[in-house]
């Protein structure tokens, strides 16, 4: 008898990731790009409206304020923060940083990246928080 003829093999079904929590969180992480793409498309429309003139720009701002668009962009905001939380912890594992032969502690690298997020937010506040 051939060794493999009596073997059984279960191929993965396309719902494999529903089997447990870890894989569901992985899929949520991967899906953060869906609301991201929506926001980028909105932003691109904003770019085009700027090219077209002041009225078009006002129309775009009004469009961004419509309830569904606003809700999806709030979702994109949450997705970007979730993405950041999952992405930052990967960095020290993919590129362990060494200074003078010593490996930088992982939590220092993660904290550094969050400081970057905060710095960008402060820059925006400084630019846009006042007229």
């Amino acid at each position, binding site marked *: *008898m*051939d*060794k*493999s*003829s009596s*073997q*059984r*093999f279960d*191929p*993965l079904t*396309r719902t494999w*990731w529903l089997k447990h929590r870890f894989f569901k969180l992985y*899929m949520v992480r*991967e899906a*953060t*790009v869906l609301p*991201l*793409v929506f*926001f*980028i*498309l*909105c*932003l*691109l429309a*904003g*770019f*085009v409206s*700027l*090219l077209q*003139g*002041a009225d078009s*720009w*006002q129309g775009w*701002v*009004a469009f*961004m*304020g419509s309830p569904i*668009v*606003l809700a999806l*962009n*709030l979702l*994109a*905001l949450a997705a*970007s*923060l979730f*993405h*950041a939380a999952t*992405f*930052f912890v990967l960095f020290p594992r993919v590129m362990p940083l060494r200074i003078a032969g010593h490996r930088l502690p992982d939590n220092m690298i993660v904290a550094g*990246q969050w400081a*970057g*997020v905060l710095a*960008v*937010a402060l820059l*925006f*506040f400084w630019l*846009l*928080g*006042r*007229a």
Partner: protein
Amino acid sequence: MSKQAMNKPAMNKPAMNKPDNPQGTTHKQAFDEPLWWGLFSAGGVCFAVFLPAVILFVGVLLPLGLLPAEALSYQRASAWLFSVPGVLFAGAVVCLPLFHAAHRLRHGLFDIRVGSDTVNKKVMYGAAALLSVLALGVVLAGMLS
């Protein structure tokens, strides 16, 4: 009882007992993957570091009218976007995150077994490239006009 039967049964047992070099393609190098992964990684950093602030201010506070009246007026917004920093803004907030998204969508489709990776790859990275050209084109057009 032959230990190594020549013809494998119809059982789904891929890649097993294969010769070392089936079609002489064993070491087919993936020279494009480093590029996609590099763009994915750079886009991931932009998505994590820049996008929270951009979405908060442009996608939420601006339409809600929570920014000072002239903070993003047409004059101010177009002056900012149609400039050299505007090109960098488009690259960091549109182009790179698009390639990040394209990479994840491509692998996500493979994960849920939709389509073929060869086609998905072309569609995803192609769309990211097209939209990137559009974004940079709009900014450059604005700078020239």
